[in-house]
């Protein structure tokens, strides 16, 4: 081939590349994506970094709709169920992803590109978002429940926190460190009623005592010795060594109490680690230790798994552009971008193995190792000692769970506030849940929302 032809060939290849690049860049030209999300720190950072995406994808404009969690859930449910098509990307939790996926309300995310490295995503996190071998959402960040404790108070009292404490040990520490006269309470735990509030924690406590929500035939197991022991322990612990009015405290209230130096221990979501370690937001920064969530008769299901993930509603009219965006926002380069702009410790946690292979992150985030260990230990298919017909540690992937768990949560919050006896309230709750399950037809035919993960 002559030089001239070679030159022409090279030029033609260059022109083809340019055309393809242009086509890729302008594939979503004049596209507006509406993204429904919540006001969590990691989502706020994603919103702040979104101009970077718009810069590399000319013609794509991102519209952010930030709402309170329950409002967002209600808003998304209405829009998706009525095919309103108002959202192209939605932020959903580990509870909604399998339910909505099974209903075909979400677009399946199959055939992900090789450079996305789907195998790098935590297996159990991925499985939580999978129905019938189809991934319906990609994880944005995930959290486990862990134990926070004040290293200075422990040192002063000559106490040592084990890496995997039992609830009995926690009670012993709380007893020794409870000092309300000096404004320090032995332990802070969620008490506010709600399936995502007190019942998230109580779900793990009940699991630790060997209890379960339902037996294999979907009969509620609330009025059982395991539940009675676990809930009585929780109520007694908070009443004796907790802050005043614990039935009003959820994650945020306890975060504020702990960050303000009012709690010797706190068992809650690992996502609080960033706040309590940040001197700008916490009076106890540098004086906090992190260990695994407490267990009792079993460590199965003693730490929860919650995943905030990004999904595409089936009603989205711009699914391809939406898919491109959510893959960007959960990709390795995005995580690196966050680390570069906001510091290593701000990297969205709990989704990728590569995050925890990064020594700089492990060093910058003192809560990283325990979060990793806790997440790796979670097995949503086996949340407690006995077999269960559902998948989930602190959640049960059935549509009735929100109502059922909130109902039980109210009864327990009532007991915490001194309005009734735990044993009687659990007996009442059992009857109410039994009626709900019967009405919903669970005793006639067992619904399978999530099948066993494919081997």
């Amino acid at each position, binding site marked *: 081939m002559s030089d001239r032809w070679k030159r022409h060939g090279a030029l033609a290849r260059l022109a083809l590349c340019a055309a393809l690049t242009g086509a890729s860049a302008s594939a979503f030209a004049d596209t507006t994506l509406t993204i429904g999300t919540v006001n969590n720190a990691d989502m706020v950072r994603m919103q702040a970094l979104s101009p970077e995406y718009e810069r590399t994808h000319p013609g794509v404009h991102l519209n952010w709709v930030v709402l309170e969690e329950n409002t967002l859930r209600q*808003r998304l449910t*209405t829009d998706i169920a009525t095919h309103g098509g108002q959202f192209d990307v939605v932020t959903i939790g580990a509870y909604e992803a399998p339910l909505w996926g099974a209903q075909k309300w979400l677009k399946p995310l199959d055939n992900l590109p090789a450079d996305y490295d789907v195998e790098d995503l935590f297996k159990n996190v991925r499985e939580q978002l999978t129905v019938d071998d189809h991934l319906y959402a990609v994880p944005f960040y995930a959290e486990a429940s862990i134990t926070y404790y004040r290293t200075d108070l422990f040192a002063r009292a000559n106490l040592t926190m084990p890496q995997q404490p039992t609830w009995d040990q926690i009670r012993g520490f709380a007893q020794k460190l409870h000092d309300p006269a000096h404004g320090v309470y032995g332990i802070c735990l969620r008490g506010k009623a709600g399936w995502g509030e007190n019942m998230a924690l109580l779900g793990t406590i009940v699991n630790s005592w060997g209890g379960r929500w339902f037996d294999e035939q979907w009969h509620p197991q609330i009025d059982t010795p395991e539940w009675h022991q676990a809930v009585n322990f929780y109520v007694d612990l908070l009443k004796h060594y907790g802050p005043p009015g614990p039935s009003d405290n959820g994650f945020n209230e306890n975060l504020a109490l702990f960050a303000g130096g*009012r709690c010797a221990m706190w068992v809650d979501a690992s996502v609080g680690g960033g706040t309590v370690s940040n001197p700008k937001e916490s009076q106890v920064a540098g004086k906090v230790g992190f260990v695994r969530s407490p267990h009792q008769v079993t460590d199965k299901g003693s730490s929860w798994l919650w995943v905030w993930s990004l999904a595409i509603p089936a009603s989205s009219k711009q699914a391809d552009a939406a898919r491109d965006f959510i893959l960007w926002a959960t990709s390795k380069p995005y995580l690196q971008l966050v680390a570069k702009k906001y510091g290593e410790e701000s990297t969205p946690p709990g989704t990728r193995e590569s995050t925890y292979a990064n020594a700089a992150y492990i060093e910058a985030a003192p809560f990283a190792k325990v979060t990793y260990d806790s997440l790796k230990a979670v097995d949503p298919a086996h949340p407690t000692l006995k077999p269960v017909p559902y998948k989930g540690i602190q959640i049960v992937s059935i549509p009735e769970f929100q109502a059922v768990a909130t109902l039980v949560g109210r009864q327990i919050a009532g007991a915490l506030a001194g309005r009734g006896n735990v044993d009687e309230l659990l007996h009442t709750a059992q009857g109410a849940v039994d009626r709900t399950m019967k009405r919903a037809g669970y005793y006639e035919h067992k619904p399978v929302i999530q099948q066993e993960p494919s081997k």
Partner: protein
Amino acid sequence: MARNRPTRRLARTLRALASWIVALVVFFPILWMLLTSFKTELDAFSMPPHFVFSPTLENYREILARANYLHYAWNSIVTAGGATILGMVVAVPAAYAFAYHPTKRTKDVLLWMLSTKMLPGVGVLVPIYLICRDLNMLDSRLALVIIFALINLPIMVWMIYTYFRDIPYDILEAARMDGAGTWQTMFRVLIPVSRGGLASTALLCLILSWNEAFWSLNLTTSSAAPLTALVASFSSPEGLFWAKLSAVSTLACAPILVLGWLSQRQLVRGLTFGAVK
């Protein structure tokens, strides 16, 4: 008489004191919101609460950096203002008919109108959402204007009806005898006479529409989202947000508070109109 003077003075002082206490109790949440908006998140959550602290404008800075406040404020002005105008256009003739040309079913109709206020909004959320979807009115200011006007219409009709009832029919008859038609009677006699009452009705509708959150959150995403949607966006399930939420609430309340302050004389006059016969 002389002996009664100290007693009267004491009574007056006690009344003034009681008024101040009530006013402070009513105003305290707003004052606390304002104070919290200048605190750091850590100060905002501190227990016992801090009355003395180093004020910061950081929360306001962050809100203005994260969201286009003027866009939301403009949507609030358009939707609340539009709903007030639309509501008044419908409510005034309706109240006129009810007040001066009653039938034997007038009271039933008025009660029925009021009874629609007892229906929880969420009960009609899906039908209204579907209507808006089919009319391509999701995330549109027009949908909010119509819905806000409809929500407030029963109260507006009732209020204006009450004011009209207090205006003697003889005045209208006199105008008629002078040759005025129905529209002239309404615009030249009735409306000027009941200006105070109409202004307070309009203001109430404006305030209720400005503060409405349920429909704003459910029917809008970004283009038509008013200030209530902006406020909601600063609540967080996982994180400290009280100071920022207070700052954004202050920004959302400020315009309507100023308007209420400027028009308080008119508002009070309207609300007490016809109270003393």
